[in-house]
């Protein structure tokens, strides 16, 4: 029984004289042994895990990865190249967490492991290494630079340079997946939401409270319109919206890539920015960002002087969909049904009788489906709010996408660092997407949105289906009197 483990340990120590690498020591100190012990190896996480489902290999599952971490912590194995690769192979979608009976904090263990690996790593591919340093230290923390980048991208996209590059075949010098990414990037903007429309926006009608908009660093450059639409939706639903100027990147890409120190510094900045603004809620429209915002308490758990304000911040953070559904002035289901029947007749929204809250109506009859943002679903635990909103849209038929709760393969920058697995997962996802025959594929996170755009392009569905952010879809169908 337990003896076999003891004898394995003895054999290991006897055989190798108890030596272990520096990485092993770092991991031993970093990994939370309580969490490792809490995994009882029941295997319930396996069917939830995208990489296990793709490969059928135990090491590619949460249970397997935790066993590897525990083996390192127990001194049973030295963390070799395969170990590092395996930790980076995980999408970090955290679908294993809701599936876990024992409530093992897999996301935290993964971050501890990646943080340790990152400290010692020499193994990144050249474009990964370059991209990481540029992005993590040089770009994401500085919203001004992000805007400059957005400006440069815009020049590239609009000046004819893009045409030239595509025509020249220059993109073929880059890995295939980067070439595909280049094609689906939306038009960038060098002026963010606050620069374009100002940083304070009053509620329409009866006021519910004040929301601080978390604009996100990538969102504000590549999806500035979505941020503007978020503000307008929130105003219409009764919220004052402020956009604190000193906020910055949430730190999610840092935290998920083993750059904890960077993530913490960014978190502290954000906490100060939103506290100063005195908001009731902090709304994000990117599941990937929101999931870290609600975990600022954990991120800063070893800094007691930040505990109170981190908890303040985390408690107030939620996705825009949940804020609308739970606190916003939305029309009741019955009133929405009336609006729907009116919409049939007017073919251009609900014809103006939208008292008592906002409602949504589509001019044409459309079919819509939804790909969950893993972090909105598995970390923020809010799968229902987006669906409630979609079902409330008159003249739109919502169909569930089979396995919409499974990661699309975007996973932050995973589709850049692990292109083969990401592409395999995307292909399986698109098979299911095709079957919905939806006109619109909605998502709640920029990474997922780009990946879905990529999937539509890659699978030749461009004329038939469009990937759109939920907020943009709703905004376009917001009843006119409420805009």
């Amino acid at each position, binding site marked *: 029984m337990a003896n076999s483990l003891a004898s394995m340990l003895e054999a290991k120590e006897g055989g190798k004289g108890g030596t272990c690498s520096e990485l092993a020591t770092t991991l031993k100190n970093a990994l939370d042994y309580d969490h490792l012990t809490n995994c009882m190896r029941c295997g319930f996480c396996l069917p939830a895990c995208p990489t296990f489902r793709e490969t059928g290999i135990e090491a590619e599952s949460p249970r397997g990865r935790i*066993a590897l971490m525990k083996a390192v912590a127990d001194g*049973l*194995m030295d963390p070799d190249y395969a170990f590092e690769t395996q930790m980076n192979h995980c999408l970090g979608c955290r679908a294993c967490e809701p599936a876990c009976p024992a409530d093992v904090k897999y996301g935290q263990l993964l971050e501890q492991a990646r943080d340790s690996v990152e400290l010692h790593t020499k193994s990144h591919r050249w474009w990964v290494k370059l991209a990481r340093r540029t992005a993590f230290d040089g770009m994401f923390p500085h919203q001004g630079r992000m805007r400059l980048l957005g400006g440069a991208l815009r020049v590239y996209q609009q000046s004819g340079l893009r045409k030239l590059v595509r025509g020249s075949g220059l993109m073929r010098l880059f890995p295939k997946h980067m070439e595909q990414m280049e094609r689906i990037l939306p038009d960038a903007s060098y002026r963010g939401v606050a620069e374009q429309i100002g940083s304070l926006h009053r509620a329409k009608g009866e006021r519910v409270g004040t929301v601080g908009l978390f604009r996100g660093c990538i969102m504000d450059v590549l999806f500035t319109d979505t941020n503007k639409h978020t503000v307008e939706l929130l105003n219409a639903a009764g919220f004052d919206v402020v956009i604190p100027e000193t906020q910055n990147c949430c730190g999610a890409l840092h935290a998920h890539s083993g750059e904890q120190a960077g993530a913490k510094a960014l978190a502290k900045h954000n906490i100060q920015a939103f506290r100063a603004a005195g908001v009731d809620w902090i709304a994000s429209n990117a599941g990937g960002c929101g999931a870290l915002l609600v975990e600022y308490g954990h991120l800063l758990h070893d800094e007691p002087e930040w505990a109170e304000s981190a908890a303040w911040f985390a408690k107030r953070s939620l996705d825009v969909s949940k804020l609308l559904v739970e606190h916003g002035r939305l029309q009741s289901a019955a009133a929405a049904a009336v609006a729907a029947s009116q919409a049939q007749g007017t073919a251009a929204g609900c014809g103006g009788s939208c008292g008592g809250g906002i409602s949504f109506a589509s001019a044409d009859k459309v079919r819509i489906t939804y790909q969950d943002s893993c972090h909105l679903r598995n970390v923020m635990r809010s799968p229902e709010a987006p669906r409630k909103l979609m079902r409330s849209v008159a003249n739109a038929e919502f169909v569930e996408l089979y396995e919409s709760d499974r990661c699309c393969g975007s996973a932050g920058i995973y589709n850049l660092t692990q292109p083969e697995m990401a592409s395999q997962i995307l292909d399986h996802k698109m098979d299911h997407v095709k079957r919905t025959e939806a006109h619109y594929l909605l998502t709640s996170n920029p990474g997922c949105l780009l990946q879905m755009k990529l999937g539509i392009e890659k699978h030749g569905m461009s004329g038939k289906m469009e990937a759109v952010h939920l907020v943009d879809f709703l905004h376009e169908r917001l009843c006119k009197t409420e805009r």
Partner: protein
Amino acid sequence: MLQDSVKSKLRAIVGKQWFKDDPESLITHSYDGTPMLQSLPDGVIYPENTAQVSAIMKLLQAHRVPVVSRGSGTNLCGGTVPVEGGIVMVMHRMNRILEVDLENLTATVQPGLITKQFTSHVEGLGLFYPPDPGSMAISTIGGNIAECSGGLRGLKYGTTKDYVIGLEAVLANGEIIRTGGKLMKDVAGYDLTKLLVGSEGTLAIVTEATLKLIPPPKAKKTMLAMYKDLYGAARTVSKIIENRIIPATLEFLDNPTIRVVDDFAKLGLPLDMDAILLIEQDGDPETVERDIARIADICRSENADRVSIAADEAEGLKLMTARRSAFTALARLRPTTILEDATVPRSKIADMVLAINEIAARHNVTICTFGHAGDGNLHPTATTDARDKEEIHRVELAFEEIFEAAIQLGGTITGEHGVGLVKAPYLEWKVGAAGIEVMRGIKAAFDPNNILNPGKMFAKSTRKRVVLGHG
């Protein structure tokens, strides 16, 4: 240690990428769902078809290399921990549904098929495969066959053995045998099909199974009854059966479990109840209505404190929440959760639960009991911490006494999890020395060199029986 020449031959059989002996693969195949067990294999192999399994076995037999075949490794008896090293054979690549025969109502499948995928597939065809072990979302049909898995529907529908009617299996020497078939009657010789079901990978490696399917019930209804008196609940179980009603599920939670579940799921359960019964009946709508009404009457006549009947399926699911959260709630209490499956004749349920509570109190350990009251299969579950050696020792002593108590009540040490490594020292308590000898003879006939899952089922020595105090 495995010779390099054997390794290269294994690679030649399955292809380079499907035999692994790197540390990552060995570590991740050193455990299963059983707490506190770990032992490294020498290699992991993923065969694609029966011919490969046969070739692998011929090679391993020639070199006397142990082999543990497994699916997803979710068993709770240490059945797939490679305690004597050797090769772990993972059946995941053999995961196809080969045929669903609508004329004979059978399905022929490969062993690596996930149980849930199979049941969903046949349900889509308007058919029903009843065995529903708790791990069915990830367990494999092959694993279910090896352990003869049960589940919530055992009382009315039986367990895995009642649905396996034919097998293809590879013997230790690489020979391929076929047993049974699409046959509802077959007495040609010993029933090797039933023998292989529940043989825990010690007799042969199952490579294909023919399963019986049945038409699904048309309607289902759920109800719940709460008791301040444990014996009232137990008498209810017996009375229901006595009245010639066989419910589809008849589940039970004891007081310690009720407390833990309520704390976890905030269901507002009354904490002064000694037992909750969750009952489901399925079948034709009229029969279901009539049975549920009669069961409710029986519950009341046995002094149930509250009886609730679900109006529809959604409410039924809600009533089942307490039972469905039991495992999760217990698993979150402490780091280590040890789930056993002592089983008694259903008339002895109350005696068994009281014995478990008394034993737990005496050893000062937390054991909550829930389970399948209808078939007498209880899950006394200890919540503990593997790192506390002294407490683990007390837990082990308590379970030893629980096994003994079950046997004294005419029960068994394991109802559905299997013997494996964990219960091997107690097998003789149940089957006797002569029984062990017969089983050893069968093992030797199938596997004379003891290479198939060695170290399981038969312990080096039987535990001395504990003497239980009475009264």
